[in-house]
């Protein structure tokens, strides 16, 4: 019995260092001038970004087997890129945590690595992934979140928000007012926004749901889809001219009358909401349209 236990302990002692050897710790620090740009690129694993009040960039975490970190930096720019070995399909991705200065510009790109950005105050945020998914919280002057199949979840406070996806779902909430655009092919788009100045949302077949605290004076909302349902919820105090048009989808609205041509398909609705200051345009080919004025 004692021999067996000794053998077992020896086996554990031999195997234990293997995962440790396969991973390489990362600890990089680089100064960055105010308003400088930070770029990070990683294929798999994860990238977590947090803001701080120092004028430097810090990258910590671990690299997987055979991976190396390529760093290029100047006073105004820090580029961090995880280089993967050829045929690295089975190796674990790099797990990284990045600290970025307040007021900097962040450009982050991944393939399957999840991207999590929070507690930041950025001049500009550009995040893109293929399938990894993006979560973004915090503040940014301008924001662009792009995905192919990964989901995008944003709670950014930003004056200009751009969201793009092919099949990944887009979900944005919080105080993203100002200018917002969201484009998706088949991924659903769900937006819960403060009063917007300009909102453009397009999908081909992804469902489209928008709830907004209203339109800023002279604001504009444009929603378009080919075949997906559209729902728009606005407060009753909204002031806008509403135009809805659909080729074969149904139109339901709390305001206005749906008109249909005597012959042939199609229906449209033109209505004035409140003072009619802003413009709301909804176009659908075959998706249904629902406009509610029961929002906040």
């Amino acid at each position, binding site marked *: 019995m004692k021999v067996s236990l000794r053998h077992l302990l020896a086996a554990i002692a031999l195997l234990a260092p293997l995962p440790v050897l396969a991973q390489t710790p990362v600890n990089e620090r680089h100064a960055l001038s105010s308003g400088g740009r930070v770029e990070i690129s990683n294929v798999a694993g994860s990238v977590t970004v947090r803001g701080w009040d120092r004028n430097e960039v810090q990258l910590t975490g671990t690299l997987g087997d055979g991976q190396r970190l390529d760093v290029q930096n100047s006073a105004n720019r820090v580029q961090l890129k995880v280089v993967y070995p050829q045929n690295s399909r089975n190796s674990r991705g790099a797990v990284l945590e990045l600290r970025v200065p307040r007021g900097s510009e962040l450009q982050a790109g991944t*393939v399957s690595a999840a991207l999590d950005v929070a507690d930041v105050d950025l001049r500009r945020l550009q995040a893109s992934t*293929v399938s990894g998914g993006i979560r973004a919280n915090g503040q940014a002057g301008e924001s662009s979140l792009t995905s192919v199949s990964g989901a995008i979840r944003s709670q950014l406070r930003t004056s200009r928000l751009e969201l793009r996806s092919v099949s990944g779902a887009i979900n944005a909430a919080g105080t993203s007012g100002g200018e917002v655009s969201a484009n998706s092919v088949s991924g659903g788009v769900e937006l819960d926004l403060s009063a917007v100045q300009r909102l453009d949302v397009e999908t081909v077949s992804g469902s489209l749901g928008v709830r907004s605290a209203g339109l800023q004076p002279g604001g504009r909302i444009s929603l378009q889809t*080919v075949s997906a349902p559209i729902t728009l919820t606005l407060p009753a105090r909204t002031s806008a001219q509403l135009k809805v048009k659909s080729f074969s989808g149904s139109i339901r609205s709390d305001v206005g009358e749906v008109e249909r041509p005597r012959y042939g398909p199609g229906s449209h609705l033109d209505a004035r909401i409140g003072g009619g200051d802003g413009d709301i345009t909804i176009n659908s080919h075959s998706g249904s349209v629902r406009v509610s004025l029961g929002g906040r």
Partner: protein
Amino acid sequence: MNERIPDHDTGHDVLAARLRQLPAERLPPAAAWQRIAAQLQEEPRLPAAAAVATPATRRRRWLPTAAAAAVAALALFGAGHWWGQQDRPVPAPAAQASPLEVQADALADAYQQAIASIPQDTVPAELVPALHELDASAGSIRTAIAQSPDAGFLLGQLRRTYALRLELTRQGLAPAGLPT
């Protein structure tokens, strides 16, 4: 036009069946001409009515077959002409295609040429489902444009879809992988 095709086929089948029933080609038996000559010499002895009746009867027997053959030949000619027209890519007259469709076709041609110029074997596996999704969506949009030729917003959708398709296909060319 489509409804008439089964008639043509039916006529063709009837004709084919009758053709199959026709006697096969045979070699004349030995001394056939001698017997024919003998019968010709005996012919004046037959009643006039009988002499006329024999070829007339033969003509009447062949009349329905000949008529059917003529009808079937016309039908086959008509069907062949019709199929010929179907196989040939008929350029749609400009008046039939809406301006939106013309623009959509031009847009599709331009992007498809651009996409075709990119080596497709470099596209990463991660992007393949998305590229299929984009291709299917472009097809859906073009169908919608054909159905609703005054929906200008669809052209923008199509342009955006093709642009994204091109962009993702190009990303596959990046030597260091996605994204850079």
